[in-house]
């Protein structure tokens, strides 16, 4: 008798939990597609043969170039080289109109945070993958997810709710995540280290 009551309760609980587990992140984050389906795989393949530094480089004054501007793409894409519709759109909508592509930055930190690539990649030699995951070898761009309430990017807040089996970058890049690595590596920090 007792068991008969428990089974529907258990099933109901599982459905609610599972549904919540599945639905909450979806409801919490607004998804937006990138303006152009850019493929890192194509461009770093043997055929095109570009390296990360061709598009993302550190200049001597300490600034990281970030996402390359249209002038980096234009020399190769004034005319479509292949048959892909996406490339045609790139040429028609951006290159020929000389309009910058409004990329969405997955890793974008809030305005009050100061981050600089120079100490991390040049002095500490940390690999891009540690913080960005395998983005540099992907063939398709995932949608950009933004928290509807905090407006923070999903890559900042992290993908794993329970932190099980998650790669370091999937844990996100919140204040704690930055500090955790700094503590492990003995970096002295205070509020003004990362805030501006």
């Amino acid at each position, binding site marked *: 008798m007792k068991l008969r009551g428990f089974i529907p309760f258990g099933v109901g609980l599982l459905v609610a939990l599972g549904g919540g587990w599945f639905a909450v992140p979806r409801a919490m984050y607004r998804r937006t597609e990138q303006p152009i389906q850019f493929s890192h795989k194509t461009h770093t393949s043997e055929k095109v043969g570009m390296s990360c530094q061709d598009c993302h480089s550190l200049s001597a004054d300490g600034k990281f170039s970030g996402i390359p501007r249209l002038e980096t793409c234009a020399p190769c894409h004034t005319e479509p080289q292949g048959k892909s519709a996406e490339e045609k759109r790139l040429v028609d909508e951006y290159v020929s109109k000389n309009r910058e592509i409004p990329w969405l930055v997955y890793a974008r930190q809030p305005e009050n945070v100061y981050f600089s690539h*120079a100490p991390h990649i040049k002095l500490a030699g940390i690999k891009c993958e540690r913080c960005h995951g395998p983005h540099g070898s992907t063939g398709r761009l995932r949608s950009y997810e933004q928290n509807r309430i905090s407006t923070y990017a999903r890559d900042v807040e992290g993908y794993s709710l329970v932190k099980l089996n998650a790669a370091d970058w999937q844990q996100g890049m919140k204040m704690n995540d930055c500090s955790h690595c700094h503590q492990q590596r003995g970096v002295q920090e205070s509020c003004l280290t990362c805030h*501006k």
Partner: protein
Amino acid sequence: MATEQKPKSRFGMVIDLDRCNGCGACAAACAVENNVPPAHPTATDRTGLTWMRVYRADNRRPFPDNRSVYFPVSCQHCGNHTPCMAVCPQNAVDINPETGVVSQIPVRCLGCRYCMAACPFHARYFNWFDPKWPHEMENALNPDVSVRMRGVVEKCNFCHSRWQAAVARAAANGNHDIDPADYVPACVEACPEKAMTFGNLDDPKSEVARQSKAPIVFRLLARLNTDPKVYYRSDRDWVRRLGDTDVAQGESEVSRG
């Protein structure tokens, strides 16, 4: 982070009061560099904002013996029992272990203003109003300094964004230490009289360290023993004596609560 440890370097400055002519270029350069908004129409001396305030004081003698002096006063970056840090219930104030700079993190600040009451130098300011810039000026904001909101306290941090840029420049060239010439706050740079000398007080080779040891150099309210990192310099005895009184109560255009 409220622990007091000895920072790796101690940045500070010496201000030569015999050179300062009170022009206010330091205050203007500071406001532009640090996105301090223009005064709200209803702001008063007490409710306005500035990270660098120029006080006028005089020797209280009648004409023709009357002489005046200008004191540019910013956060003094106290290194000993830093009063604002001690009272902050939010941990929004700490001392940077690299530079000795006293921070103020507006996003953490809850606006209780204990720090303003604790600060002996009246160097902290509260945002009584929403910051507003004339439309065209909004595009000219400095992207390296975040804009504050109404309800939080702010103050000078020796142009910390310039320190961050200097660290990044050094790092890009494979260096851990910055080139001292690469880190100069906006006020020091702007002073037409070259009255301000900035640098690492712990570096015996630096000009600022040398100057700070001169006998005619003094600090404001030295008796409080808060070890400020801003030094003043004057040949005139009566000016040096003013350092022991509350400048804000000197005869000045300024009265703050």
